[in-house]
C-alpha cells in the first residue's frame, strides 16, 4: 500500500470516502422523493428547521445518546468480525428492563441506586440474550447474522408479552408500562434539556476507543478479527472471545435501551421499536469501526432523524423514508469502496472478515483461500499499528 502518504493526506482521503457516500445517498434520496411526489427541498429545509434551529438541537443531542452507545456496541462486535445484527431485540430488552423493572425499583429504593440496578440488569439481560448466537457461533460456526436476527425477533415477542403482561400499567387501556415520574429520571445537564445519558455515551465512546486501540485487549480483538485461526495459534481462546465480544456488544446495546427510557421516553408501549441499530450500522462502517469517529456520523443522523420525523410529515412522506436513506448510504458506501479500490485510495470500509463470515470460522479449510478475494481490503485497525 501507499507507505509514503502523510497523516494529513490519509485523514483527508478517509474523510472524503466517508462523506461522499452520505452526500450521494442524500442526492439520490432527493430524486426518489421527487419520483414519489414529495418535495425534497421542503424535506431538507424541515430537517434543518426541526433538527437544529431553536432548541431543537438539544433534542438531536438527546437522540444521540442511545445512538452512540448502540454504535459502540456494534463496533465492539464488528471489530472482532462478529456480525451482531440482533440489535433491535437487544435494545428493546434493555428498554423493557428500565420501563418495567424501573417503576418497581424506584418505589423501594433511592432513585440513584435504582438507576444503577436498572442499568446492571439491562446489561445482563442483553448479555445473556446473546449467549445462544455466541455459543452456536463458537461451537458450530453457525452464521451469527442469522441466529442473532432470529433471536431479535423472539426478543421483540418477549418484550411485548412483558409489556402486555406483568409490566402493564393497569391504569391505562392501551398496553404500556407505567410512566416514570420526572424526579426519578436521569438528571439534565445544567442549563439544558439534555439528560446525562449523552455524557455517558460520549465517555463510553472515548473509553471504547482507548480500550480498542491502545490496550492489549484491543489488540487481541483485532488479531481475533483479522484471523480466528491465527488467534488460536497465538493462544487466544476463540470460544471465550466470541462469547465475550457478543456479550459486551449486546449488553451495551441493551444499556442504550435502558438509558433511552430513563432519559427520554419515561414509558414503553407494546410494538414500539425505534430500530436505531438499522440506522447506526452503516454509520459504524463509515467510521471504520472507530468509536470516536462514529460520533460525528451519529450526530448527522440524529439531526436527520429528529428533524426528519416532522419534516417527512410536512413533505407528505412517512418516517420509514429514513430507512431508504440509510439503505442508500450502505449502497453508496460499497460503491465508493469499489471506486476507491480501483484508484488505490486507501483501505476498505468492509474488512475481509465480512467476506468469509458465511463460512465456518474455525473448521473450514477454505477460509484462507476466500480472504484472498480482492486487494486493498486490509483492516484499518491493523494498519494503524504498522509503522509508517
Amino acid at each position: 500500500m501507499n507507505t509514503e502518504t502523510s497523516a494529513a493526506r490519509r485523514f483527508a482521503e478517509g474523510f472524503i470516502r466517508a462523506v461522499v457516500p452520505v452526500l450521494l445517498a442524500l442526492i439520490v434520496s432527493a430524486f426518489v422523493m421527487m419520483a414519489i411526489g414529495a418535495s425534497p427541498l421542503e424535506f431538507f429545509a424541515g430537517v434543518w428547521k426541526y433538527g437544529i434551529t431553536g432548541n431543537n438541537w438539544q433534542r438531536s443531542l438527546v437522540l444521540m445518546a442511545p445512538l452512540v452507545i448502540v454504535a459502540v456496541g456494534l463496533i465492539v462486535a464488528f471489530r472482532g468480525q462478529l456480525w451482531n445484527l440482533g440489535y433491535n431485540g437487544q435494545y428493546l430488552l434493555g428498554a423493557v428492563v428500565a420501563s418495567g423493572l424501573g417503576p418497581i425499583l424506584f418505589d423501594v429504593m433511592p432513585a440513584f441506586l435504582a438507576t444503577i440496578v436498572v442499568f446492571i440488569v439491562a446489561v445482563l439481560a442483553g448479555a445473556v440474550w446473546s449467549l445462544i448466537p455466541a455459543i452456536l457461533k463458537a461451537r458450530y460456526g453457525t452464521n451469527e447474522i442469522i441466529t442473532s436476527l432470529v433471536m431479535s425477533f423472539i426478543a421483540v415477542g418477549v418484550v411485548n408479552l412483558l409489556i402486555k403482561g406483568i409490566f402493564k400499567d393497569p391504569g391505562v387501556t392501551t398496553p404500556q408500562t407505567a410512566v416514570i415520574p420526572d424526579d426519578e429520571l436521569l438528571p439534565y445537564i445544567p442549563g439544558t434539556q439534555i439528560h446525562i445519558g449523552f455524557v455517558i455515551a460520549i465517555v463510553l465512546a472515548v473509553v471504547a476507543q482507548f480500550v480498542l486501540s491502545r490496550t492489549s485487549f484491543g489488540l487481541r480483538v483485532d488479531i481475533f478479527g483479522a484471523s480466528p485461526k491465527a488467534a488460536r495459534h497465538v493462544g487466544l481462546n476463540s470460544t471465550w472471545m466470541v462469547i465475550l465480544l457478543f456479550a459486551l456488544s449486546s449488553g451495551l446495546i441493551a444499556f442504550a435501551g435502558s438509558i433511552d427510557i430513563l432519559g427520554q421516553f419515561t414509558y414503553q408501549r407494546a410494538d414500539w421499536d425505534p430500530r436505531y441499530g438499522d440506522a447506526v450500522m452503516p454509520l459504524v462502517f463509515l467510521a471504520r469501526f472507530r468509536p470516536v469517529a462514529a460520533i460525528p456520523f451519529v450526530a448527522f443522523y440524529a439531526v436527520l432523524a429528529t428533524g426528519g420525523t416532522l419534516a417527512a410529515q410536512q413533505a407528505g412522506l412517512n418516517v420509514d423514508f429514513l430507512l431508504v436513506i440509510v439503505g442508500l448510504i450502505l449502497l453508496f458506501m460499497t460503491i465508493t469502496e469499489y471506486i476507491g479500490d480501483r484508484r488505490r485510495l486507501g483501505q476498505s470500509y468492509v474488512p475481509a472478515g465480512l467476506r468469509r463470515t458465511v463460512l465456518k470460522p474455525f473448521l473450514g479449510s477454505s477460509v484462507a483461500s476466500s480472504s484472498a478475494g480482492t486487494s486493498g481490503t486490509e483492516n484499518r485497525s491493523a494498519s494503524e499499528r504498522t509503522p509508517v
Partner: protein
Amino acid sequence: MSDMLTAAFVTVFIATVLSQAMPLMLAAVGETIGEQAGVLNLGIEGVMLIGAYSAFVATLVSGSFWVGVLAGIVGGIVGNLAMLVLNVWLGLNQIVIGLAVTLIGEGITSVLYLQNYTKSPASLGAAPKLAIPGLSDIPVIGPSLFGQTGIFWIAVIVALGLAFAMARTNWGLSTRSAGQKPSSLDAAGGSVMRTRSIAVLLSGALVGFGGAYLSLITTATFSPMLTNGLGFIAIVITMLSRGRILVVMITSLVYGLAVAIGPALQVIGFTVPADIIKMLPFIIVILMLIVFARSSVVPPALGTPYTRGAR
C-alpha cells in the same frame, strides 16, 4: 376436544398450513438457487416486500390475480438487480448490499403504501379457486389441497421443476459449480458471471413470487413490513436444507404448521397470546438451529465474489 376435530376444522387447518408455507417455500427455493450459485442474498426480506407490494398494486389496478403475480415476479427481479450489478458484476460485499436492499425495500414499500392506501385500506378478496375435478370431491383433502388457487399449483410445479433441474440438468450442474468452485466452472468453459447472473435473476423472480403469494393469497392485502422476518427464516431454511429443494419444501411445511397451530389451538379452546403465536416460528427456527447446527452446510464459494485469476 375431540368433537372439535371435525372434517371442516382439519380442512381449514391444512389450508392454513399450505397458505402460510407457500410464500416461505418460494422465497427459500429462490434463496437456495442463489446460494448454490455462490450468492448469499441477505436482501430477500426487502425483495419480498417489493414483490408483495407490486403484486398488490397490480392486482388492485388490473383486477386480475395473474397480472399481480407477474408484477410480483418483475418486482422481485428489479429488487435483485442491485445484487446482480453490485455484487456479481462488481464483486462488492454481499452482506452489506443485502442489508441495504432489505432497508430500502422495507422503507420504500412502507412509504408508498402509506402514501397511497392509508385513506382507503384495500383488501383484495379471495383469489379464484381451481377445483380439480374428481380429486376435489375427496372429503377433507379435497377442499383443502385440491381446491387451491391456480397460483398454488403453478408455485408447486415451478418448485418441483427447479428441484429436478438443479439436480439433473447441465444448468443445475453449472449453477452448483459456480458456488462450489467457480474456477473449475471457468476452466471448463462456462461463464461464472453468466451463471451467477441467471441464478440471481431467477432467485429474484422466485422471491418476488413468494412476496406476491404472501400479499395476494396468504393475507389478501398489503401492510408495511408485511413479511416480518419471513425473508430471514427463508435464509435459515436454505442453510439447514443444504441446498436440496425438496428438503426446502418439506421444511417450509413445518414452518406453515408452526404458524397454523396458534389459531388452531384457539379454536380448540386454548387462548394463546398473539405475541406467542408470532414468536413460535422463530423459536422453532432457533431450536432447529441448535439441534441441526452441525449439519448446516453452505457452498464453499458462498459470499465470495469471483475474480478471474485470483487465487
